[in-house]
């Protein structure tokens, strides 16, 4: 039985459809990186896993199963039990997600219950400075606060950790450190990880599997190596090609053309179609269904027919991204001197 299973989830905000039939599965102990453009619905999906959406959000369709339990159908008590036993969350803004009026140690103790060893849990995230448990959140630097949040989430050894851009605001050294902590702790405890991020290469480097979101749907999912290595979806390819880190100084990068969609109802066809260099007529008004391409599940009408490839040599998913980027086959990236 999969640990997390999201089926055709549709979430509506008053004026926006944030999720438009998202599908996702995650096996116990597995780490899944969920990447996608800004506004593609990552945070919404992450919150939906714990039914933590704001009151204005409505689940229009679909379901979320955590450890087999339908999250949206559970009565309050069972839901709480599920969250406590199976789920852990690390939110995007760590300082804001810590209670500002309580010392860090006290907050951790609340989570651990009586007899919990605060020192041990802080040490696990490399916070062995004795000042930390006595500090209030606003007295911590961003990186420290982030690690506290992780310590709290990991304290109960959840089966599934949902981490929403946990490293976005950290400098590269601390980011490495924090990621290391999370993944090693998860590995120890057999925790599954849902890692929401916009940093495709970084995710691909650490996670077992990667899912790519676009327009409220998971457009591609599969083993990390495959998703980045064997490009199957045009959007993934476009995304992979525009990392600024990959550009040399004075080189002009070209973003994916067009603007991300903002839906207010089901998209008629493929949401990426307007920006897709390979779009056909049916992409406009026929919703794609998942297709198995190699080891990936791809949501594209032309999946499989396309030969997508990384320009300027093969992308190296492992380790640092080298010079150059991942571009669609037709070589849409042009080099311009700034």
């Amino acid at each position: 039985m999969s640990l997390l299973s999201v089926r055709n989830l549709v979430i509506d905000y008053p004026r926006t459809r944030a999720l438009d039939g998202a599908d996702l599965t995650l096996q116990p102990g597995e780490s899944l990186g969920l990447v996608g453009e800004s506004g593609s619905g990552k945070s919404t999906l992450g919150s939906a896993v714990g039914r933590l959406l704001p009151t204005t959000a409505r689940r229009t369709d679909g379901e979320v199963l955590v450890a087999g339990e339908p999250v949206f159908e559970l009565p309050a008590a069972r839901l709480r039990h599920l969250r406590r036993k199976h789920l852990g969350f690390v939110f995007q803004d760590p300082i804001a997600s810590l209670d500002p009026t309580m010392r860090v140690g006290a907050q951790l103790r609340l989570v651990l219950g009586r007899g919990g060893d605060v020192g041990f849990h802080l040490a696990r995230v490399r916070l062995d400075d004795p000042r930390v448990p006595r500090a209030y959140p606003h007295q911590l630097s961003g990186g420290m606060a982030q690690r506290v949040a992780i310590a709290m989430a990991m304290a109960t050894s959840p089966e599934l950790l949902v981490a929403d851009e946990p490293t976005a605001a950290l400098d590269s050294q601390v980011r490495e450190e924090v990621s290391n902590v999370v993944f090693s702790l998860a590995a120890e405890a057999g925790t599954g990880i849902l890692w929401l991020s916009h940093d495709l290469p970084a995710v691909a480097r650490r996670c077992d599997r990667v899912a790519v979101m676009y327009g409220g749907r998971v457009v591609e999912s599969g083993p990390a190596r495959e998703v980045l290595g064997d490009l199957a979806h045009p959007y993934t390819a476009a995304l992979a090609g525009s990392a600024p880190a990959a550009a040399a100084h004075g080189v002009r990068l070209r973003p994916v053309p067009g603007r991300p969609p903002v839906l207010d109802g089901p998209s008629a066809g493929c949401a990426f179609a307007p920006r897709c260099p390979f779009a056909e007529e049916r992409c406009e008004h026929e919703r794609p269904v998942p297709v198995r391409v190699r080891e990936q599940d791809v949501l594209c009408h032309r999946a499989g027919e396309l030969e997508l490839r990384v320009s300027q040599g093969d992308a190296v998913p492992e380790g640092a991204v080298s010079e150059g980027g991942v571009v669609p086959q037709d070589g849409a990236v042009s080099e311009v001197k700034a």
Partner: protein
Amino acid sequence: MRRLDRLSIGGLVTLLVLVVFALGSPMGIGGDPDAIVGPRLQPPGPGWWLGTDNLGRSLLPRVMEGVGTTLLLSSVAVLVTAALSATFGIVAGYRGGYLNELVMRLVEVLYSFPAIVLAILVAAVLGPGQTAALASIVLVTIPLMTRLVRAAAVAVSQRDYVTSAVISGARLSRVLVRHVLPNVAGTIAVQGTYALSVGIAVEGGLSFLGFGVQPPQASLGVLIQQGGTYMIAAPWLILGPGVVLVAAILAINVVGDGLRDRLEPRETRTLT
């Protein structure tokens, strides 16, 4: 834009009805509030639909006049309080500093004067009457509101959007009005309706002591004060104005809460 909820709309409608009711009085609908029309302490009946008071005056026009007096008096008082408290509180909260602390302390010491002493002092300066009542209500309600607004303003002033506005070169007035004020408006709304209730109570007490509304003018405070004495012998005397007063304050409070919720665009969260 979030709409007012049903309860608040009910409150708004009630207030509207009361205002219409009050407007009827100067137009002579319901009769002369001061005229002695019948025997004393009569239960409701034709000629005096809400009964007569201890002077044989019909209660209906008196309640109508009273609603007008009270609503006008206390809402003006609350507007003044809200304006002053918002100004003091926001400026003090935003600026901080010793001078502001000093001003706050002074305001607080003023607050510690028992209301009647304050009222008598004010009446000494202004002479008894509505102005004195107004000033007393304002003086009694200002400090709490100022304090709470200041506390809220302190928190808001730390936010980055305030800093952004400052960087843009926004004038102090703009920062305070566009950024700090809307974010403390909920507090002002809640405390404003509270002040309104206090105002009505203080008005009743002052009139009782002779410093408020002067007879024969009716105000809800005066009517209820009188009705209170005749609670047993002539319950209608308190029932009429009492129901109207409770309806008014209730409506105001409910609307205040609704307003507060509306002023908060962020959605609330349930704890389950």
